[in-house]
């Protein structure tokens, strides 16, 4: 087990090296000089050159890359071009904000999804099944900024229930959570439904039926518990995957999260912030996935073999939220 955990953590290294290499590669071909972004449009060529020198932008990109990685190893993700603050210091509170929204969103999506999924499994092939399918797919088919703006219009402007934007008031978290959570209902519904159907067809359920247990007892006692395992695994991984996925939603609601931080940084060519944001998202993703796996092994030792032996390939079955 320990060996497995170490192996998974070591896998983080090539991912981080790779992510930073991709962004460095993009940086060399992206138009727009960061030095000019910092100095403004009136700056002279000499000032720009001096700034480029100061930022080390004139060095070969490989040198810049190695220097950056050296810093990251020491926990230094560089300073934001825009504010001069250490990137890590800027990102951590934003990570917390995005984390809260992700947790809430996953909770909303999973809760509604599981309920709809169970319902449609129990009523399979009926109109209820079809209705659930339609409902669960509705939010998956509307662009999230539309959902966001309409939520603001209905819940904040017309009904005055929630603040329109920002998170100063804790109620401000609700709409971003809904906006990210609602589209994910469809996938939870589907996993729950198929998992339930599968479990309901297993031998031990038939045995239970044969033993004369009530249908209610079978559904909620035997089937549900077992059917929830893949659902729970899916919830676990979508936690990691959605943390950086709130770019659009955070922009709509003016939420100071990691996603918005990265969007702003890209439009400002603020490379330390882009890199820092990407690396931290990657770290969070890998660490959360690892923690989720460990948690499952602890909860249900039977899963040990599937998780540990299929550690790498297991991920493929998880939602790949962007």
């Amino acid at each position, binding site marked *: 087990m320990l060996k497995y955990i170490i192996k998974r953590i070591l896998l983080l290294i090539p991912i981080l090296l790779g992510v930073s290499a991709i962004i460095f590669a993009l940086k060399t071909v992206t138009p727009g000089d960061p030095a000019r972004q910092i100095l403004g449009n009136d700056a002279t060529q000499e000032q720009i050159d001096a700034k480029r020198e100061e930022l080390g932008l004139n060095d070969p990109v490989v040198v810049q890359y190695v220097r950056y990685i050296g810093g990251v190893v020491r926990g230094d993700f560089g300073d934001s071009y825009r504010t001069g603050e250490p990137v890590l210091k800027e990102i951590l509170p934003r990570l917390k904000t995005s984390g809260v929204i992700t947790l809430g969103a996953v909770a909303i999506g999973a809760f509604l999804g599981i309920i709809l999924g169970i319902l449609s499994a129990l009523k399979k092939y009926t109109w209820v099944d079809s209705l659930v399918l339609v409902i669960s797919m509705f939010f998956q088919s509307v662009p999230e900024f539309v959902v966001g703006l309409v939520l603001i219009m209905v819940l904040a402007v017309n009904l005055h229930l929630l603040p329109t934007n920002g998170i100063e008031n804790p109620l401000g978290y609700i709409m971003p959570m809904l906006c990210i959570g609602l589209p994910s209902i469809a996938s939870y519904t589907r996993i729950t439904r198929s998992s339930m159907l599968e479990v309901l067809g297993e031998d031990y359920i038939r045995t239970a039926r044969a033993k004369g247990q009530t249908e209610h007892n079978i559904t909620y006692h035997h089937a549900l518990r077992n059917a929830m395992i893949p659902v729970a695994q899916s919830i676990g991984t979508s936690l990691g995957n959605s943390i950086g996925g709130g770019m659009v939603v955070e922009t709509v609601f003016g939420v100071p999260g990691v996603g918005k931080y990265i*969007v702003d940084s890209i439009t400002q060519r603020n490379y330390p912030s882009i890199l820092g944001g990407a690396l931290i998202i990657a770290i969070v993703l890998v660490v959360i996935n690892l923690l989720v796996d460990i948690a499952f092994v602890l909860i249900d030792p039977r899963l040990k073999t599937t998780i540990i032996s299929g550690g790498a390939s297991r991920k493929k079955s998880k939602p*790949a939220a962007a």
Partner: protein
Amino acid sequence: MSKMHTPAMEKIEKKNAKRKKPLNPTPAYESWKRFRRNPTATIGLIVVAALILVAIFAPLIAPYDFQTQDYAAMMQKPSAQHLFGTDQFGRDIFSRCIYGARYSLIIALFCTIAAFFSGGLLGIIAGYFGGKVDTVIMRIMDIFQAIPMIMMAMCIVAVLGNGIPQLVAAIMFASMPTMARNNRAAILRVRGNDYIESSEAIGCNQFQLILKHMIPNAVGVMIIYFVGFLAVSIMMMSSMSYIGVGLAAPTPEWGLILNDGKSYLTSAPYMMLFPALMIMITCFAFNLMGDGLRDAFDPKLK
């Protein structure tokens, strides 16, 4: 949007991991019969077919040109002359939405094909050859996977500029890892089949094996991903327009029309409503169709 994977993909994937018994090759006819029995899927198919017809016959259906500006008729509410109203240039939103079917569907198709030829192909190679090739490809995909899709797309547009080919490239790169994973899974699943193993044993050559046996058997699953990804790329385009890295004016792509209209949400909501409905109906239809296809190609649960 941002959900790269559609309902169907998910189920397939999950089952892949568990499947022990080989799947008997299903004749296409059987699948079609199952598909047709599924009412929601049939509705999805009909809507998609209708949209394709709209796209083909756009010039006949649309009462106005999609870019002719009429300053005497700016921002008019829906009426008999302008079914969906007019925008801030006096352009007929109905005509733009109709032509939008053409642009959006074709761009989505290009995006999907591009994604299949990049990520999809890598996944097939990884899945078929396995071993070191698999490890290397999938480790690289892990790296790409760690970069959020919208971020990747924004970076690509910042490098390449905006335009239809650039947009296709951005969506292709952003979706590469997921595409690779899905297709790899599809191939792995077929690979486990007895008859593939026996063909290998009797010495069929690899090329033939891939072409004649594995792809036809995995194709059902791939179609599911394909249909699902059409919806994903339409959603992706509208998100990119929102972030400001979408297509340039005056292309009547739904995401762009929607984003233009969003400014007038509370004062002239029809400008946003209709393109939003077009996107919603289209994605909904693709998703329903994908769901039906999943059941049709993969009937174990039904």
